[in-house]
């Protein structure tokens, strides 16, 4: 029999054995998914969240009394709604994954709520602040540990009025994140007679803002309110200086990151921003989390929402230990969470799965660092915003 026949018979044989070997099941490990922006402009926050979730998993795996072995499946949504839906579908369609710690970007979280509901995968949002993610639907699968824009903008408006600023111009990106911040800031401001002279919606990856800024310069506001994430904030702050504009730059939780300060350099001096929850070191479990995080020496900092990702992962593991790795049981148990102790304080989910965080922290940039307003020299009168 010539060589070709023998080789092809061997080929068919090996192909068939591969075909059947692939069907074996692997051992009993419970998979939890983490979804966040691991690449792109806001990847610092995403990577900090992933490392914190991974830390929670490894700590629980080392603990002796844990019933199951846990594994983290981390996926990158690039902070883009379309990529977010793709990876969410991939995770939700995977039978081994029983729960998820999902999303830093509000735009992506909004896009994926339907996917989690369709595949009834219980998830906890760890960083996105748009209220509609939980209040905009009555899906039992969606929960959130961090606070929302409503109280963030209420505190921001009262504080800025107390610093007797009265005239604002608003630039916000046209995603749900930017529009949400603008909407709730406008509501909060109308209660305390602040006036918004003009509003400009911009595309998050727009390069050139000189046109919008020139129009704002004509309106001559005291403060420029920016609703959006760090990359866009960097470009706007830098191009403000190009047009000789010295207004106060007031941002949102989206720019509370080192990436913003590195991008803008010393122009960041005196920039204001507001964020839910206290700074990590002031949180109840803050010290323990910071030390454990340093011990693992990840090459990225935990960033603003790392603690929330850690708390969300721990909550899911506690629930799985109690009811076992089944999506429906986990979902029902999560809905009934009351006063669950976590490093970000007690977690209680209301009927929409929302955990209410009252504490909002005011930040100002002083010498290239985000400093809590109360401890800054601006509060003590040594420096002035204007």
């Amino acid at each position, binding site marked *: 029999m010539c060589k070709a026949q023998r080789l092809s018979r061997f080929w068919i044989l090996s192909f068939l054995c591969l075909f059947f070997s*692939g069907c074996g099941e692997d051992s009993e490990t419970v998979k939890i998914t983490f979804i966040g922006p691991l690449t792109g402009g806001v990847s610092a926050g995403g990577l900090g969240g992933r490392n914190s979730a991974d830390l929670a998993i490894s700590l629980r795996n080392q603990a002796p009394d844990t019933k199951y072995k846990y594994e983290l499946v981390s996926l990158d949504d690039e902070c883009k709604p379309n990529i977010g839906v793709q990876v969410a*579908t991939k995770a939700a369609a995977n039978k081994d994954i029983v729960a998820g710690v999902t999303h830093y970007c509000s735009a992506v979280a909004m896009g994926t709520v339907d996917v989690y509901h369709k595949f009834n995968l219980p998830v906890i949002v760890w960083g996105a602040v748009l209220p509609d993610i939980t209040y905009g639907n009555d899906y039992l699968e969606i929960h959130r540990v961090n606070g929302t824009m409503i109280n963030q903008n209420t505190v921001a408006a009262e504080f800025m009025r107390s610093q007797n600023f009265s005239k604002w111009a608003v630039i916000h990106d046209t995603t749900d994140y930017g529009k949400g911040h603008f909407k709730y800031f406008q509501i909060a401001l109308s209660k305390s007679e602040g006036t918004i002279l003009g509003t400009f*919606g911009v*595309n998050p990856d727009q390069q050139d803002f000189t046109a919008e800024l020139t129009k704002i310069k004509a309106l001559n506001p005291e403060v420029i309110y920016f609703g959006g994430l760090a990359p866009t904030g960097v470009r706007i702050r830098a191009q403000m200086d190009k047009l000789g504009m010295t207004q106060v730059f007031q941002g949102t939780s989206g720019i509370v990151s080192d990436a913003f300060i590195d991008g803008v350099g010393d122009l960041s001096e005196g920039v204001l921003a507001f964020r839910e929850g206290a700074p990590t070191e002031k949180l109840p479990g803050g010290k323990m989390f910071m030390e454990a995080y340093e011990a693992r020496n990840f090459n990225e900092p935990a960033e603003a929402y790392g603690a929330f990702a850690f708390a969300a992962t721990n909550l899911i593991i506690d629930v799985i230990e109690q009811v076992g790795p089944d999506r429906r049981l986990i979902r029902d148990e999560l809905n009934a969470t009351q006063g669950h102790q976590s490093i970000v304080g007690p977690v209680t989910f209301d009927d929409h799965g929302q955990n209410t965080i009252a504490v909002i922290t005011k930040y100002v940039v002083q010498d290239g660092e985000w400093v809590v307003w109360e401890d800054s020299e601006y509060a003590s009168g040594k420096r002035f915003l204007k």
Partner: protein
Amino acid sequence: MSDLKTKLVLLLGVALSVIVLYGFLYLEREWEIGVLLVMVPLGVYFLKRANALTYYQHAAREMPRFTWISFALGVVVLIMLLRHEDFALLMLTTVLLYATVSLGLTIQFGFAGVVNFAAIAFFGIGAYSMAILNQHFLHIPDLLIIFFSGAISALLGALLILPILRTRGHYAALITIAFGILFRTFLEVNDVLGGPQGLRVSGLEMFGWDFGNSFPNELGGGSFYVAYAIVALVLLATGYLITRLIEASWLGLNMDSVRLDEVASASFGINGPRWKITAFMLGNCFAGFAGAVYAAMYGFIAPASFNLSDSLLLVSIVLLGGIGNPVAVIPAAFLIVVLPEKFQVIQEYRLLLFGIVVILILRFRPSGLMPRGLRQYFAGRFG
């Protein structure tokens, strides 16, 4: 070759390809896919050595209708085999839809020679039309909405046709690229269409059957993607049939003539612009249909998923397969959609790798993997 023998050869060919496709879609671990990636080309080499491939091609030319039916049934078997694998079905449906758009591109680029770098924009127009029509016109049956989405894509395409007709090759390329950017920027800026946030799209509902919930148990149960896979298969099969019929008729003949030499064709009464318009609008119509089904299946669309790199991906499918060869888009679409999903390491370098592959093809084998054969009007002797 007796009819029975031909049918046997064709069925064997389909069975073999279904097994290979099942292997690629079902197996999860990367080393398994790696082994498959080595085995399949080796297998093809053996088949070529034992000139089984020419044997199959000859059989396919003898009974084109039977080949078409057997292949469609083969894919139905594949869908049934995978009915519980949600993500595998999602990938298979995406392949079928991308192949349909590539058929549209084959008609535009392969037949009439009209270059189109905005294929994903017309795919997007179909998706957004489905999203809007589904939201505001609930009483219109979804089948009709899919049809309207295709028609809207074709009509919007007509807007572009005037500048394209009056310009030569590379100018038309620029116009289509500019249209792609214009379409995406317009979506991102305009709030009514959801801006960069995108839109939610409700699932399809046909013949009283809501695609939202899983496949009925009497038909074997399985994930809700099965219904979408079947719709996508019907769309691709019809699209393939229409493309083949156009090629094997005076319409395809005139399109080819206009592509090869517009002046000479004009001297023999062929109205160049008419055939370019027909090809361009028909291709965009295919893209619109596929976009509508894609939007309904995914449940969510955003401008960020319709940018130039996706259009280039579609162009690479047509180039990889072989310009103008309708059969070639199916294996090419499979390679370009499934491989990056299966190989995480490729996922990150996907666009880089496909860029390099297309450069190599253009440089050393411009006619692609399965070059287009001569026109065959009917089975058997006719050409």
